[in-house]
């Protein structure tokens, strides 16, 4: 049996399937009943998911209108006075708006890019370069940090990067690099944040790629080796193509996170010296919200954020559909 690169091909019918196959919905089909007659099993399979999402996700969706209303406890969630875009304007007019946007985009985009590439590289290394035993060890080793709580990770950054006593600072001093203050220097904030994110999650995120690589037929590798291909060539011509569909899907999903940064870690890493680059939308909302019960304002900022992210997702999805024939919908 051969396993070839199977890019999804949304339009063309699967080869060899007769047009009138009961399992194929003809593009010219006019009859709904015919669709249900042939596809009811698929509907049954997807129905529970529709039910759960419909109930638990769409059920509370009416709460979004809070972004356009005053929060009025006595009048109920949907009963407050309609204020339109008041809270959106309030956010846009905030003297910190552009700083927040800039910081949020810088942090999330750097994290997205580095965080997107690292797991792929790691998966390729683990899968191809290493021997079986080393591979297992490396896989487990890189997977571990994912489970360390953010609070502890930030505490460890403090201990490792302390300008006077930090392990890393002392090591750098030992090899002749002096005077770096990773915690106090505002320009170090984003690199420290991104690198620690990659350290923590690259292993975990490489799992999905490893699973995709596991589906590559060994015969392909054998054939390549017989043809005299080196490891790098195998990676280039067999492994990478096998990862492409997964990469595209994850890339589309990642693009939906352009304005999404984690809250807790950034908040815990903030200090007066890096505040200029570390104040992001999430931390700002927290600070605004924690004192004043500002549900409407918070919902409005959240909705604004969501709209931007969703737009990016839709655009990326369209591009991916045209370019590679892979898409979310």
């Amino acid at each position, binding site marked *: 049996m051969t396993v070839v690169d199977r890019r999804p091909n949304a339009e063309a019918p699967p080869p060899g399937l007769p047009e009138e196959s009961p399992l194929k919905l003809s593009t010219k089909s006019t009859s709904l009943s015919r669709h249900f007659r042939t596809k009811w099993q698929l509907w049954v399979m997807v129905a529970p*998911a529709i039910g759960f999402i419909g109930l638990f996700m769409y059920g509370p969706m009416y709460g979004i209108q809070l972004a356009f209303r005053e929060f009025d406890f006595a009048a109920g969630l949907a009963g407050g006075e309609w204020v339109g875009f008041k809270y959106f304007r309030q956010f846009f007019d905030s003297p910190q708006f552009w700083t927040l946007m800039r910081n949020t985009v810088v942090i999330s985009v750097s994290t997205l890019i580095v965080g997107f590439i690292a797991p792929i590289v790691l998966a390729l290394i683990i899968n191809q370069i290493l021997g079986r035993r080393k591979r297992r060890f490396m896989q487990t080793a890189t997977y571990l*940090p994912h489970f360390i709580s953010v609070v502890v990770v930030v505490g460890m950054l403090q201990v490792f990067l302390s300008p006077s006593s930090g392990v890393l600072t002392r090591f750098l001093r030992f090899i002749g690099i002096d005077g770096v203050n990773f915690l106090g220097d505002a320009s170090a904030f984003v690199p420290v944040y991104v690198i620690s994110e990659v350290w923590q999650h690259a292993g975990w995120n490489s799992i999905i790629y490893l699973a995709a690589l596991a589906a590559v037929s060994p015969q392909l590798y054998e054939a390549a080796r017989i043809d005299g291909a080196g490891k790098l060539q195998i990676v280039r011509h067999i492994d990478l193509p096998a990862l492409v569909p997964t990469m595209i899907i994850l890339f589309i999903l990642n693009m939906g996170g352009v304005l999404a940064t984690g809250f807790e870690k950034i908040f815990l890493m903030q200090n007066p010296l890096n505040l200029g680059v570390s104040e992001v939308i999430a931390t700002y909302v927290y600070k605004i919200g924690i004192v004043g019960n500002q549900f409407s304002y918070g919902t409005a900022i959240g909705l604004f954020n969501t709209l931007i992210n969703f737009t990016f997702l839709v655009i990326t999805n369209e591009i991916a559909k045209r370019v590679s024939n892979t898409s979310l*919908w």
Partner: protein
Amino acid sequence: MSGLIVFAVLYPVYFVVIASISNPTLVATGQVAFIPQDINFFGYQQILEDSRIWRGYRNTLVYATVGTALNLFVTMPAAFALSRREFAPRKLLMFFFAFTMFFSGGLIPTYLLYRDLGLIDNWLVFILPGAVNVYNLIIARAFFENSLPEELFEASVIDGASYFQFFVRIALPLSMAIISVIGLYYLVQHWNDFFTGLIFVRNNEIQPLQIVLRDILISNQAFAGGAGGSGGSGGGSYAQQFADQIKYGVIVVSTLPVIVLYPFLQRFFEKGVLIGAVKG
């Protein structure tokens, strides 16, 4: 190269372990680097004596097992159905699902809904609302789309197999890798879930492990700003000493089970397993 990666990745993990048995003052001032200092097991002793932890463990195990089973039961068939290109409504349905990754009604209406459904203070709140994670659904669907050879489907159609039969007999056995991945994702999601317990549960009897652990873990965060209310009246130093001692141990205790589980799943990511499964 890979040695360097392993060291860079593993050193902090090693640090967590030695820090959990070292004097917290020495840890915080950077005097513990490679060798544990002033070794004591005070932190572990405190953790293990805490009866809440054991109850939390038990609860989390139940939620994670039952929850993951339901997750897979709902997600995998749906992902398969949505992967079938001849299933015309799938685009619309994918949009229906993907939309909820971004837009949600917020916590208050969610709370009210759960209350009406009787899920507040009910252990099912850890299981039902998260029965499908759309992210995992998309991953699983992409896998079915790209890794299930279409020829197999054609062949089974010719043999007269229905969708159900094809899914159970061919698709699932061929998809152990993705089932393991998705299962792991769900399991870890349940394992780390503290938010559900925080917002929707007030009965301590059914709180999961993470709620108990977070309590211990962030107990000194209130003082991080320096102006902690009770910090002023003498709660501060105590919290700091005590919590620093325990926090690294908490990480070790709470992640051991998930770490131990991994090697069992690992074999599904080994090359050749799948093909072997089909042949056999």
